[in-house]
């Protein structure tokens, strides 16, 4: 297998912001640096170690994006096969998990495009629509979400987000990546990432409130 220079879209991300490291949910993992170096030298056991360290997060991302176990497992497999082919190009400019997530995100987006699902690309979801604009009527006065949403309900609502929104929401709010990292992963501007996240939260709010109204009715 060849591990040639990847296209620009697959270059490692820029260095993450050093602040707020204590708040991050993707801190450096003990033993990871050694495993990366060994895997880059062709040590298959080291690659297995990297798989063990990151399989859950990569699989979780795939499963949240596809809502289908078989497809998520296939894409997890594909992401790690790509990792194997490209690991020699990892230069450590960004966190390894960010770099690996970028591979996984590309695998997921490619799959969704093949399936012909709508709103897969960020560009498509950035098209303004009436749904995404400021709201004059922002819901019933006496009905707020606070305290009323359990994990299962939120998971279901996230599943119903358009893929472009879902991806940015999962990467930022669930997985804890910064906008600069997401922008690198998705080849978009930081502003686009922020805009997508806001639209995703607004859409989630709509979905959750709709669900609440149905329960009350």
């Amino acid at each position, binding site marked *: 297998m060849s591990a040639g220079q990847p296209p620009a879209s697959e270059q490692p991300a820029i260095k993450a912001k050093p602040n707020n490291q204590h708040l991050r949910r993707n801190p450096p993992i003990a033993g990871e640096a050694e495993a990366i170096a060994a895997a880059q030298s062709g040590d*298959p056991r080291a690659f297995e170690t990297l798989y063990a360290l990151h399989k*859950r997060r990569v699989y979780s991302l795939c499963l949240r994006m596809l809502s289908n176990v078989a497809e998520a497992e296939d894409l997890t497999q594909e992401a790690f*096969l790509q990792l194997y082919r490209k690991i020699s190009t990892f230069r450590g400019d960004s966190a390894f998990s960010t770099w690996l997530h970028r591979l996984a995100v590309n695998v997921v987006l490619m799959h969704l495009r093949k399936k012909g699902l709508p709103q897969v690309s960020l560009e498509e979801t950035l098209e303004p629509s009436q749904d995404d604009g*400021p*709201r004059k009527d922002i819901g019933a006065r006496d009905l707020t979400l606070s305290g009323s949403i359990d994990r299962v309900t*939120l998971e279901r609502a996230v599943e119903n987000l358009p893929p472009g929104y879902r991806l940015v929401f999962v990467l930022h*709010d669930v997985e804890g990546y910064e906008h600069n990292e997401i922008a690198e992963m998705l080849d978009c501007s930081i502003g686009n990432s922020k805009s997508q996240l*806001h639209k995703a*939260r607004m859409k989630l709010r709509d979905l959750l409130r709709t669900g609440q109204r149905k329960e009350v009715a």
Partner: protein
Amino acid sequence: MNGLPTSLVRETISCEEFQEKLPELFESGRPLDSEEHLKTCKQCAALVSDLQYIAVQAKLLLPLHDPSPAVWEKIEAKLNE
């Protein structure tokens, strides 16, 4: 000036204006309680409360499950081809 756009330091802005600026207000990381608009607009206050709540609840969604052992077996088989 405190570095914010002019529209953010005016005493009264519309809901539309406030919501246009909401993404950057969230990203600024500073408390939104002091926003003048929120002191008088219950709808926008509810919106901000909900969006903050969603962001907090999202942190509870990790982790999901591991992939089945068959995934690694398939990867290993491919690598050995």
